[in-house]
């Protein structure tokens, strides 16, 4: 790790995040804290069935209520009736048929939230419940698929001597950001609207909302707002179009704020998966062939099921060389709640299956599981066994394995304090009932967007006498992007004062999504380019050779103060950053579809009360290539937080569905890990050169969530000897009931 010494607050320092104090004092304005004079409150009528026909929908009783200003249905959508991030297949408001439990049918604006809630209840609606399609295998059989990928690589006749097969499942996980969806739409009085949106990508919101409203592009401005986390849940539209429709209809600001239950149904989830694997190796443990069938259930509407399935498929064999591959992936359309982006984006699912298979294969070969991985690992210069793409940049799989094995193990259990035992303060478990297990997993994932997407980020740097400003539409979800971008700005410009300014969609071009491990390289790349451009412009204008807080220098002498430099107004430089292009896959799903990769490994240590099936995750240690650490504290925070979401999927997090309806859309029964569930996370950060983000930095936030889950389950298997083929692992799975 190196620190820029030239300027305070540059890269490599753990600078304090600029929004930290406000957040600690309760002063930070989250979207649901927003207020506008005269604002109305929105509420949504949702379908109570997984599939239903709307037999009757009479809004008159709601509209007649005092304090109710508008009630809108499908017929009131002035423009396109559907929207979607990839395919516009989702109705703004359901028409005739509802396709999932909780699908919006009508929206209300009223004086206060209570009146809005009552108005929703007053809408006279009758549904005829229809038979839903909820089984993803049946969906495949019925041809109900958003995307199918039949990917074959290498000689399909190759066979190995040692064969292991397995069937694996991962449950539907919720991103569960602490802040629920909220937003505010303010009409501009001239037919247009400003929207403060719960989004990770304001320009994609703009693109989806606009056609539904039937407005001209400059009549809609989407502003980034204070998010309370996202983790993929805010890539898709939730309340955005509804708020705008009501604001335009009533001529008044309209605010929506989902409660936790509505949040669960109001955003997409991690796709539940079913995976059938067959691994074949020669007697020495060289992988020969991997066959898999993967079914990821996309639920009722497409969202990002296509790209999620692509990730699951491309990374279905993990970071290993396999000469013969046949992966058949399906992203299904059912009447389950829609699924889309969540941290790890498809790689999580297939990593769980393939890493379990690697352990199973190692057992069949009587080999050490990490030795098997080392023997087959992919490194720089190798080709992806699936897409065939060559790894042109460093892929330090060898170092990940080496460092992971070298990390010291946590001490043996030597406490009778229940806080150190499975079952915690429930006092279920004595130390004598505890078995310890250790498990490993490696995870490989693409960074940034793939398959030929033209991905760009625009940043405008503005120099004024007080310092520089970064203007961009990049969304801060909480991960610390702004902090890191300011550090990049300070280091490149040599200025200590670099401020961040959010621009809305009318002021600047797209920054792309704050997702896919992409803002560090993408907005970072644009900040870097814009700062270099700005600096060069100023130095050229004043014939200087250096810029610092007092102004432009030449040969150590001050030639112009910042006041002089900005005498005719602020100096600007606009940069658009694009990463090296990728290609769409060919008909066999081969090609240079990814731009860069992240590699990481996890080692989990668990204590298990086998008789009761209770687990305490002791440690989840990790090694990851992060390219270059821009802010150590932020990097550690992403690694620990991402790992914890992997802990959640491993042992507790699951949206339980019955007949397409959620049984636990609340925090009483959708369990997130608490402080007493948190393992220690020690880490080794590899800084391999070759990342093309600023100063070689890589996007880092997804890898911690990918191999953590399989490592934990491997550790539980190690402790118990149970097969454990599904996550989350439930107590009854460990007991074997």
């Amino acid at each position, binding site marked *: 790790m190196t620190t820029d010494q030239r300027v305070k607050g540059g890269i490599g320092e753990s600078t304090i*995040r600029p929004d930290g104090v406000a*957040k*600690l*004092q*309760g002063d930070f304005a989250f979207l649901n804290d927003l207020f506008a004079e005269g604002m109305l409150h929105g509420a949504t009528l949702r379908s109570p069935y997984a599939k239903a026909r709307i037999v009757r929908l009479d809004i008159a009783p709601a509209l007649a209520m005092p304090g109710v200003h508008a009630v809108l249905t499908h017929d009131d959508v002035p423009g396109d009736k559907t929207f979607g991030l990839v395919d516009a297949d989702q109705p703004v408001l359901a028409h005739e048929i509802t396709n999932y439990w909780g699908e919006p049918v009508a929206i209300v604006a009223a004086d206060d939230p209570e009146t809005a809630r009552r108005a929703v209840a007053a809408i006279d609606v009758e549904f005829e419940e229809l038979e839903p399609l909820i089984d993803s295998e049946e969906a495949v059989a019925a041809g109900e698929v958003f995307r199918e990928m039949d990917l074959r690589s290498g000689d399909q006749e190759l066979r190995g001597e040692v064969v292991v097969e397995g069937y694996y499942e991962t449950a539907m996980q919720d991103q569960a950001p602490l802040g*629920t969806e909220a937003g505010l739409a303010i009409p501009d009085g001239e037919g247009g609207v400003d929207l403060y949106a719960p989004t990770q990508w304001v320009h994609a919101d703009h693109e989806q909302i606009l056609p539904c409203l039937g407005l001209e592009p400059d009549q809609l401005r989407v502003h980034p707002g204070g998010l309370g986390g996202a983790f993929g849940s805010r890539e898709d539209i939730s309340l955005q179009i509804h708020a705008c429709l009501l604001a335009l209809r009533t001529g008044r600001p309209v605010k929506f704020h989902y409660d936790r239950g509505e949040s669960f149904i109001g955003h997409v989830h991690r796709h539940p998966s079913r995976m059938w694997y067959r691994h074949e190796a020669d007697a020495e443990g060289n992988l020969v062939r991997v066959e898999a069938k993967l079914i990821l259930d996309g639920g009722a509407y497409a969202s990002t099921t296509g790209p999620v399935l692509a990730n699951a498929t491309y990374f279905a064999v993990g970071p290993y060389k396999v000469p013969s591959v046949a992966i058949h992936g399906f992203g299904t359309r059912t009447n389950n709640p829609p699924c889309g982006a969540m941290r790890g984006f498809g790689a999580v699912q297939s990593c769980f299956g393939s890493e379990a298979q690697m352990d199973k294969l190692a057992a069949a070969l009587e080999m050490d599981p990490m030795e098997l991985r080392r023997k087959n690992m992919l490194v720089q210069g190798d080709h992806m066994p699936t897409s065939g793409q060559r790894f042109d940049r460093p892929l330090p799989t060898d170092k990940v394995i080496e460092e992971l094995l070298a990390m010291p193990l946590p001490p043996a259990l030597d406490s009778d304090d229940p*806080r150190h035992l499975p079952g915690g303060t429930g006092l279920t478990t004595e130390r004598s009932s505890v078995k310890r297990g250790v498990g490993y997993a490696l995870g490989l994932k693409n960074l940034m967007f793939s398959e030929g997407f033209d991905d760009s980020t625009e940043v405008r740097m503005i120099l004024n006498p007080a310092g520089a400003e970064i203007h961009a539409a990049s969304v801060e979800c909480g991960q610390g992007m702004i902090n890191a971008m300011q550090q990049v700005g300070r280091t490149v410009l040599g200025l200590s004062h670099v401020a961040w300014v959010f621009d809305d969609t009318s002021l600047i071009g797209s920054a792309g999504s704050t997702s896919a491990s992409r803002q560090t390289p993408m907005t970072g790349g644009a900040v870097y380019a814009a700062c270099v451009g700005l600096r060069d412009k100023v130095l050229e204008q004043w014939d200087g050779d250096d810029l610092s807080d007092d102004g432009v220098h030449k040969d150590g002498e001050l030639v112009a103060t910042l006041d002089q430099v900005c005498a005719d107004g602020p100096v600007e430089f606009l940069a658009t950053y694009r990463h090296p292009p990728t290609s769409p896959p060919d008909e066999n799903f081969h090609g240079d579809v990814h731009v860069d990769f992240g590699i990481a490994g996890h080692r989990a240590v668990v204590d298990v009360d086998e008789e009761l099936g209770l687990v305490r995750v002791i440690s989840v240690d990790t090694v990851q290539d992060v390219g270059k650490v821009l802010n150590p504290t932020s990097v550690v925070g992403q690694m620990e937080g991402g790992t914890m979401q992997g802990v959640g999927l491993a042992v507790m997090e699951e949206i339980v569905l019955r007949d397409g309806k959620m049984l636990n859309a609340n925090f009483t029964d959708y369990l997130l890990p*608490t*402080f007493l569930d*948190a393992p220690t996370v020690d880490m080794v950060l590899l800084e391999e050169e070759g990342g093309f983000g600023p100063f070689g930095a890589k996007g880092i936030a997804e890898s911690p969530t990918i191999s953590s889950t399989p490592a934990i389950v491997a550790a539980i298997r190690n402790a118990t000897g149970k097969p454990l083929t599904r996550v989350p692992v439930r107590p009854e799975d460990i007991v074997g009931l």
Partner: protein
Amino acid sequence: MDLSLKINGEDRHASVTGSESLLTVLREYLALPGSKPACEQGECGSCTVILDGEAVCSCLVMAADAEGSVVTTVEGLSDESSLHPVQEAMLEAGGVQCGFCTPGFVVAAAHLFEENPSPSSDEIREELSGNICRCTGYGAILRGLEALAEENA
């Protein structure tokens, strides 16, 4: 019903019409939005306030039942010139990411440190087990509060 409460040392008055929570009154009627609604069923701690000396979820306090009570919210723990030691500790350690759970953590931790200025790591973990953080994995929060406990020891 007209309510009189002492909030952050000031006499405050609000009018409630129904069974709304103290959290709603703080946020919507009294312009104290620091306490956060994240689950509204007492399962996340984001709305933690000190009510008559006890840390409680303000979403589970019926505002009408808070009549005459003394309440401390996150807004009452610091001023423009200085942060509460718990806030300093969390800021320094990187215990803040999205920030939505942060006010509840700050209040619960401030209450813990008031009762026990130098809690052990296990005590910190148990006493804050009613505060869910989805971003940090708790590591940075723990490091910050451990450092503060050490300082106070």
